[in-house]
């Protein structure tokens, strides 16, 4: 999707024997004169021309249309598409709406014209003593609608349904501060990664410490991810450990691949693949089925494309093998991966460090949070990656983001020691409705290499 493919698509248009273009002089020491060669024509004859002869149907109008559409899609990057903010008035309906609803069942009901995206946060809470450390993961929103945030050595629980706050635990100085929190899928149990390399499991309803996982890591545990009863922990020692929290000897597998601190850790929705990002600029994909406790586990894919720490990771909710990853201050890119093949599908330079990524569960949109200079949250349309909104308000880098269980509200915690709530993914009423049937995306009929 970069310059390379752009130029080739442009060339493609001229690959027609009738519209032969004169080749630009491109001389070198070995071939001093290329004037007699017409590469576009030659290429056409070698590839397209032959195809057309062998299989005349292949160069059909639909293919032509596809090419045009492709060119148009790619065109986004070179031109600006503008539209009036004020839309023309909608026509007055002479025939009552009911008539249409009868003829077009459901469709008119499912209409969702343009979602208003509030530019300001819905609510702001103070988060004193929030550790301003890029490599930690101190915010999580559980399935029981309770938000957990670690402030220094204390874990607080904020119940989103009634707005009440409670303290789960305050740790002593030798074990704290807390370096990561993660809710188990049940929304009741919570894992707390600590600076002293321990991981504690708490029952949030009974406010009781259930067990402490020790001996896995050599230094602080900055990232956590649940996969049913397996808690995966990533440490500053570069190790990733799968802990079966039900059994006494909890270490099931160890993934070795990172040379520095593991700061991003996410299981795919299917629980088959684990994505891990590290301070060594590496992104790994691990396969659950190929893991075994006996042999050291090999990664399925190793991505070396990011040029800074990879912390922000998000699995796409509507496409199982699509992963979005964001790089730190030296990289600033959001990259999209096919985790089956390991191919990079797209890369977008955001201009600022990417601290966190969240997919909209209801729409094809991605939210990213950034640091210097704007400290903003950016909402992107996927896959066009058109910016839909920029939400500013934080005065320091937006380190952590968490999404409410209904997928509508996003909580963000930043280095400015505030916790803000954004109604960026739509209102709950809209989400409560069945999501409108997605329009067929362009090229859906074509086999894609993903």
């Amino acid at each position, binding site marked *: 999707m970069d310059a390379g493919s752009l130029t080739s698509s442009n060339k493609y248009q001229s690959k027609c024997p009738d519209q032969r273009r004169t080749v630009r002089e491109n001389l070198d020491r070995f071939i001093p004169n290329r004037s007699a060669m017409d590469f576009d024509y030659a290429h056409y004859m070698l590839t397209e021309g032959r195809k057309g002869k062998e299989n005349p149907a292949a160069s059909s109008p639909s293919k032509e249309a596809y090419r*045009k559409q492709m060119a148009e899609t790619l065109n986004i990057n070179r031109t600006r598409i503008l539209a009036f903010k004020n839309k023309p008035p909608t026509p007055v309906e002479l025939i009552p709406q009911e008539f249409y609803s009868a003829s077009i069942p459901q469709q008119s009901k499912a209409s969702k014209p343009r979602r208003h995206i509030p530019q300001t946060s819905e609510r702001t809470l103070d988060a004193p003593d929030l550790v301003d450390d890029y490599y930690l993961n101190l915010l999580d929103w559980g399935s029981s609608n309770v938000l957990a945030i670690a402030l220094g050595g204390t874990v607080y629980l904020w119940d989103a349904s009634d707005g009440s706050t409670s303290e789960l635990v305050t740790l002593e100085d030798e074990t704290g501060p807390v370096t990561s929190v993660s809710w188990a899928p049940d929304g009741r149990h919570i894992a707390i990664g600590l600076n002293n390399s321990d991981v504690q499991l708490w029952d949030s309803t009974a406010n009781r410490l259930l067990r402490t996982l020790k001996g896995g890591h050599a230094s602080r545990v900055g990232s956590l991810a649940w996969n049913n009863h397996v808690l995966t922990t990533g440490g500053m020692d570069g190790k990733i450990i799968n802990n079966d929290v039900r059994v006494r000897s909890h270490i099931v597998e160890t993934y070795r691949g990172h040379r520095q601190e593991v700061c991003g850790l996410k299981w795919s929705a299917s629980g088959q693949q684990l994505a891990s990002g590290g301070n060594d600029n590496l992104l790994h994909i691990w396969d659950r089925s190929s893991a075994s406790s006996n042999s050291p586990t090999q990664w399925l894919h190793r991505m070396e494309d990011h040029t800074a720490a990879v912390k922000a990771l998000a699995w796409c909710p509507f496409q199982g093998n699509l992963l979005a990853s964001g790089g730190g201050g030296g990289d600033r890119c959001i990259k999209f991966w096919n985790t089956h093949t390991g191919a990079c599908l797209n890369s977008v330079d955001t201009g600022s460090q990417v601290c966190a990524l969240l997919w909209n569960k209801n729409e094809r949109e991605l939210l990213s949070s950034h640091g210097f200079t704007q400290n903003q949250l950016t909402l992107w349309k996927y896959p*066009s990656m058109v910016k839909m909104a920029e939400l500013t308000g934080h005065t320091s880098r937006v380190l952590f983001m968490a999404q409410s269980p209904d997928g509508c509200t996003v909580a963000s915690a930043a280095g400015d020691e505030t916790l803000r709530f954004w109604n960026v993914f739509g209102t709950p009423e809209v989400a409560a409705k069945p999501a409108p049937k997605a329009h067929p995306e362009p090229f859906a009929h074509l086999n894609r290499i993903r």
Partner: protein
Amino acid sequence: MASRTATKDIITLRGSAAIVSEFFGYAANSILYNRGVYPEESFGKVKKYGLPMLLTQDEGVKSFIANLTAQLSEWLETGKLQRVVLVIMSKATNEVLERWNFSIETDGEVVENGVSREKSDKEIMREIQAIMRQIASSITYLPCIDEPCVFDVLAYTDTDVAVPFTWIESDPKLIANPQMVKLHSFDTKIHKVDTLVSYKNDEWDED
């Protein structure tokens, strides 16, 4: 006598921009009328390009098109407008049903050096007339629009254009697997406008 006709046929950048933007105004009106986006009664007849043309009487639509042509004319004079697309969408689902695509090629030399070109008004009018006739006859092959629709206009500009206050960036609003029909084009010798309509293809089946 000879010199008189010569001066008459000279076309400047400004004049060309005025002709092209005026064309967009009439073309948009014609499309909205012929495709039934707004009710028939809301249009009034005028004579233009040697044809009876229909112009909307709805104040809202009128001012939208007036603002549009004013802005387009400004961009045309700087040669930064690449394309104008009128999109017809379903009001209920926002699905794009038709895209009327006007690609513009600008003679860069005219913009840079301020030279003028020669082409008679009459000839340009005749070319525009042909396009207008085609738009009017498009109902014969375009699929019937049997639901309430809204329209929007997209302007494709060079990336270095500052976005005016009243405009926002938009997605291209493409149609998946469209059917395309190329219409006539016209050329003022400064701006060349190619017209193409693409529409949703209902018969298209997946194989």
